[in-house]
């Protein structure tokens, strides 16, 4: 996707600000995603077994309140185009 965007800029004729804006947006997305990925496995201090008590607290769960998350996802899916991204399972609805 990145290469195709570069080709559009270089070979598609006159300079296009819209194309440059789209390329900038893609690059920003990639930078943010790679920064997030680089945190994983590159941590300065992976916890030892005796350092994990805080990680076991309820507020640190990734899936804290499943009912609430499902309700909120349904609300937003009915009002916005984006959907999914919170694991598989669950039927659809006629709201989107």
């Amino acid at each position, binding site marked *: 996707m990145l290469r195709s965007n570069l080709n559009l800029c270089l070979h598609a004729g006159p300079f296009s600000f819209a194309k440059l804006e789209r390329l900038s947006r893609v690059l920003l997305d990639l930078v943010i995603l790679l920064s997030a990925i680089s945190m*994983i496995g590159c941590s*300065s201090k992976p916890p030892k077994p005796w350092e994990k008590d805080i990680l076991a607290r309820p507020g640190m769960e990734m899936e804290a309140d499943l009912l609430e998350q499902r309700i909120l996802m349904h609300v937003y899916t009915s009002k916005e*185009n984006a959907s999914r*991204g919170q694991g598989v399972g669950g039927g659809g609805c006629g709201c989107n």
Partner: protein
Amino acid sequence: MAVDVTDQLPPVETEVNLNSKEDQTAGHVSGFESAANRNWGMIVAMALAVPGTVAAQTETDRGGPLIAFKWLSYKDRQPGLRRISVESPSVRLRLPVAERWDINAQFTRDRVSGASPRWHSNVSSASIMSDERKAVDASVTRYEDGTEWSVGIASSEENDFKSRAASAQRRWHSEDRNRTWNTGLAFTRDRIGSSDDPALDERRSTFEVTAGLTQAVSSTDLVQIGLTIAEGRGFYNDPYKRIDIRPSTRRQIIATTRWNHHVESLDLTVRSSWRWYRDSFGVLSHTIGVEPIVAIGSRTSVTPSLRLYSQTAAKFYFDPVYSFVGAPFPPGYFEEPLRNVSADHRLAAFGAVTLGLKVTRQLGNGWVADVRADHYEQRQSWSLGSAGSPGLAPFYARFYQLGLTRRF
């Protein structure tokens, strides 16, 4: 190798002194504490005392039996007009069976009523509708050493829409339990009808695959990344829009990042997330969420939340500019038939902000109550990187949730 420590739980204490040679720590559990929280702290501490055992940082908290209830009350509006109202109770059950099995089930019933908009943001003469949706999903999980398997089914029914889904997931952990991988598959089959057209009977199917990784980055940080790809084929038109012709296929790609960070000096946990979404309709969206969990005493927590959303318009969405005939026909509709076209405002370019506040209270004996309020606003001018789609009236929604959970 996992060790079942549930029989070894000591009486609830506020401090733990471990005499194991491998790890000695004063496990002071402070701030927001519940009976369940203290017990889990003990479970972790006991697990740490045995060489080679695991602690539940990245893996799912299996826990014991659980029943949770939520009531959602939702209302939305646009300037000068009340629109949709929804009342929705939900129940969730979790039941451990034998030593290595869990059964999970969830039931939801939505009662929807009110006025829905037609094309763009025409708020006048909106049709009054009333509908009820019933949804149920159930899954079975098998726990083995270092891995978990789940299979699930789901069903959702409304007057004009039926959905059936099946899914399978697997999680597995690194030796030190600092990393968890997960993968999942799902297949959904939808059946679309219309209250306005009894003859309409269309189908749609979606195949979805997901993969992710959760990493304990430090003693106070958990990070998760995920990727989902969904391929759908079938009927995507909105049968209640007069002019709505959408592609018969849809590919969705979703990348997510989550970061949970605990600030020890403030006894504060901050949960943040970012979702990147792209689909073959041409929509690109970003969703950012932040919610700090603030402990108030030992039994109460307050969680304010902020959610920011922005999307671009679909390729075939048209602004409120009409042909010589007038609304709802877009330019070129009669001269040169358009392959795909829609005036559904949910395919427009806009942004949205949600402010929320949740209060959670430990009632004792495994009971937890929570109440949550959210205010949602949607505006064309809030679209990131663009002026947004013209002709959209601001949209507002307020929704409240009441919850009650019992852990056994």
